[in-house]
C-alpha cells in the first residue's frame, strides 16, 4: 500500500486483541449482559477512520476469533462483522464528518444490525436464543462510542 500516511496497522491489531480480551473476561451476569461488544466497536472505529488499514480482512478475522471463543457456528460472527464493517467502510466519509452524537447513533444502529444478523443465524442454525436481554448491548455500545473514539484516536494520526 503506497499511501501517503502510513496505515496504523500495529495500533489496529493491538486494539482488536485487547478488545477481544475484554469481550471474554468473566464478569458478573448483570454486568456481562450490558457489556458492550468491544470488538465490534473497535472494528467499526477502524472501518470508519482508517478503512484501508484493516479492510474487510480484519472484520473477518475478528469475527472468526469471536466464533471460536463463543463456541458459535464458525462464520457466524464473521459474517455479521463483515456486513457491518462493509457498510461502515462504504459510508466512512459520510460518518466521519458527523458530530460525535450522530456517530454514536450510527454505532448503535450498526451494533443492532450486527446483533440482528447473529440472532438470525442463531435461529437458522437451530441455536435460537430469544432472550430480550441480548438486545441490550447495542445501547451501551452506542453510549461507549464517544469514549472509544477518544481513546482509539490517540493511537494514530486521524486523517
Amino acid at each position: 500500500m503506497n499511501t501517503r500516511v502510513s496505515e496504523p496497522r500495529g495500533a489496529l491489531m493491538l486494539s482488536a486483541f485487547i478488545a477481544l480480551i475484554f469481550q471474554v473476561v468473566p464478569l458478573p451476569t448483570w454486568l456481562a449482559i450490558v457489556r458492550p461488544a468491544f470488538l465490534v466497536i473497535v472494528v467499526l472505529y477502524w472501518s470508519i477512520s482508517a478503512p484501508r488499514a484493516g479492510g474487510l480482512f480484519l472484520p473477518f478475522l475478528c469475527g472468526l476469533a469471536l466464533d471460536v471463543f463463543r463456541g458459535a457456528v464458525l462464520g457466524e460472527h464473521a459474517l455479521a462483522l463483515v456486513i457491518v464493517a462493509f457498510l461502515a467502510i462504504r459510508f466512512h466519509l459520510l460518518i466521519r464528518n458527523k458530530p460525535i452524537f450522530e456517530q454514536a447513533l450510527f454505532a448503535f444502529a450498526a451494533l443492532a444490525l450486527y446483533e440482528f444478523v447473529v440472532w438470525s443465524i442463531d435461529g437458522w442454525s437451530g441455536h435460537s436464543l430469544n432472550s430480550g436481554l441480548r438486545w441490550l448491548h447495542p445501547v451501551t455500545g452506542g453510549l461507549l462510542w464517544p469514549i472509544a473514539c477518544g481513546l482509539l484516536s490517540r493511537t494514530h494520526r486521524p486523517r
Partner: protein
Amino acid sequence: MVAFGGSGRPVHSRVAATGLAFTFYATLSIVLMFLDQRGNWLEYARYGLSAAAYPVQLAVNSPSAAWHWVRESFATREALQARNDALRAENRELEMRALRFEALAAENAQLRALKAALPEVVEKWLPGEIMNIELSTLRQRVIVNRGATSGIFKGQAVLARGGLMGQVLRAGPWSSEVILITDPEHAVPVQVLRSGLRTIAVGQGNAGVMTLPYLPVNSDIKVDDQLVTSGLGGVFPAGYPVARVIEVGRDPGQPLALVRAQPLAAIDRDREVTFVWFRPGHPAAPAPSTGSAAVPSLAGTAQDTQ
C-alpha cells in the same frame, strides 16, 4: 440488501474494490457456516483454532488463577486445620456408606440372579478445573482445562459435586467446552426416583432452575422429589442425581403440568468438575455408543450432532 460496489466510483475510490472483497468474505463466511453445520468437515479446523485460542484463554484466566494461588498459599493455619477436619469427617462418612455399598451390591446381584456383583459403572475419572472465560452470557457453558490430550471426547458426561453437571460439547487439545444441564439448548432424560416416572429435564439458561415441560397434569410428581438420570439417550448412565423438584404447578385448564427443579450439582459455585468414563456393556452405562451419534436429539444438544 447490500449493493455491490461497482468499480470506478469517484467518491469511494479511496477504498478499492470493497464490494468485491465483501462478496468474497461474506461467501467465505457462509461456506464456513454451511460446512460447520453439515457434517463434521470442520472438526480439524476447529481443533486447530481451539488450540490457537488456548493461550488467550490462559491469559484471561491467569489473574483469577493467580488470586486463587495467593489465597491458597497465604491461608492461615487455623483455616487449613478447619478444612482438614471437615474433609476428614466427610471422608469418614463416605467410607461408612461405602462399607454398606459392598454388601448392597452383593445383595443386588443376588436378587438379580447374577453370578457375581457387577463392577462399578465408572471405569475412570479425571478432575478438571473450570477456566474463568466468558462464553455467551445467556447460555450456560464453561471451558474446562482438560482436552483431547487427556482423553476427553465429545459427548462425555461431566459430574460435579452433588450431581450431574453436563456433557462435553467440543474437545480441544488442552481445553474443552462443556455444556451444562442448565443451558437452554440442553435436555437430559431423567427419572423420578420415588415413582420411576420418566421424563426430560430442560435447561433454562439460569444456573438455579430447570423445567420438566413434558409432564401431564395428573402425573405422579411432588415437590422435593429427586430426579436421577434415566440412562436413556445414550450419553449419561442411569442413576446419577440431577435435580430436586421445587415447584409443581397444576392448572386444570392446561394439559401439561408446570414443574420446575433445582440442579443438585454446585453448578455456579464450584470450580472443580469431574470427567467420567463408563464401563461399556455395564447395564447402568449409556447404551453402546454409535460414533458421534451418541448424542441424540433428546439427550444433549442438537448442536454439531449430524
